[in-house]
């Protein structure tokens, strides 16, 4: 394991190499599948971790994503962008899991996530909650799903607008618009915290 892990995922394999790996995976080549996972596992992990901020959940998502990829590899069209397809699968699984978790939380507490206060100033952890990172985490959870996904892909996964557009199957203009809305909403949600910082 690397002592210093760069956040930039290990992606950079030329498309024809990836296409070759996909073909070999289709024919049941284990080594090809291991190589393919090795190329993309960190990218998926980063997306999943930014959604759940929990290592176990993120690793589970990585496994689920590649199991799904293996299951659906026959239906993958070779003229498609594998990166975009993979991120789409990962995003869908993240959102499914997030919805289930949110439903559970709401059921257990009887309160909708949107109604949960950003920071409880009366609790002993108030100081911690007012920390910028925690405030951002809570605020991200309160974004609409697509805004959240785009914000995380852009700022945590370091994906460009065009790459995000391909992965979400929307136009670049929509990506920009949703990103702008996400920032505006975060500014509103984090108002008090941002005031402390400035």
């Amino acid at each position, binding site marked *: 394991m690397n002592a210093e892990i760069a956040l930039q995922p290990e992606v950079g394999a030329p498309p024809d190499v990836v296409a070759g790996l996909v073909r070999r995976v289709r024919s049941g080549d284990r080594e090809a599948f291991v190589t393919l996972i090795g190329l993309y596992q960190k990218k998926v992990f980063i997306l999943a971790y930014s959604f759940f901020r929990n290592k176990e959940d993120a690793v589970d998502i990585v496994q689920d994503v590649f199991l799904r990829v293996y299951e659906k590899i026959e239906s993958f069209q070779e003229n498609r962008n594998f990166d975009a397809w993979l991120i789409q699968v990962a995003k869908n699984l993240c959102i499914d899991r997030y919805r289930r978790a949110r439903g559970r939380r709401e059921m257990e507490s009887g309160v909708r996530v949107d109604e949960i206060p950003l920071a409880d100033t009366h609790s002993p952890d108030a100081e911690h909650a007012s920390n910028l990172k925690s405030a951002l985490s809570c605020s991200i959870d309160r974004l609409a799903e697509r805004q959240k996904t785009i914000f995380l892909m852009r*700022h945590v996964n370091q994906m460009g607008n065009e790459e995000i557009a391909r992965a979400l199957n929307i136009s670049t203009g929509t990506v920009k618009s949703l990103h702008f809305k996400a920032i505006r909403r975060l500014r509103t949600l984090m108002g008090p915290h941002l005031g402390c910082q*400035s």
Partner: protein
Amino acid sequence: MCPDCRKQWDEAESIQRGAAALKDDIRKAMETVDWDVLPGRIADRAMARPAERPARERVRMSLPAFGWKPVFAGVLGGLLVGASVMYFALRAPNPAGPAVLGIHASGEFIDRAELSMAKRETIDYLDKSQALLLDFVQATPEEAGRILNDESSVRRTADLLSKKRLVDAHLDDTTMAKARKICDQIERLFVELSQISREISAEEAARIQRYVEDKNLLLRIKLLRGELAENEV
């Protein structure tokens, strides 16, 4: 930079700093994952699943429609519902229909009703024939020729020939045998009239008038009509 813009800039920077802080967390979490082992573990799990896959494929092969996309399933469902609706809407009437509706008619009643209808049809035919023959017989031979050449007379003659074909179906009944004889005679006359040249001469018209009188056609029509009307149900 104006104060508002400055504020927005600071807020955006704070958000960026927050995102950077999230990246620190991710970096730390990534350091604790064994990236060399994970791919092999996932690949083994994926490869261990083929036992499940063929079963799923079998189901898909046996039920192709349910393995397709929802739109095809929707189309299939629509076809099934449509076919069912068409079946119920267009299927042949139930042979036991009248019984189900509580309407019952005996064979005798139906026979009498049919005979009554046949008599009415025949009476109507006789009335119209009589009217046309009267117009022809009561006219002078010169006028008779003109009447026969008249457009309305030609049309009336053609209508009566058509009607005779409808009446024929009822005249086979034994009780209508007498009516058949007269109706056939009238028909032969009308066939002859329809075939005569438009430039019918007075002599020709007089000959036909005599034929009607000799055969007592009008009288026989009158008697037969009365008889049929009297016996009508």
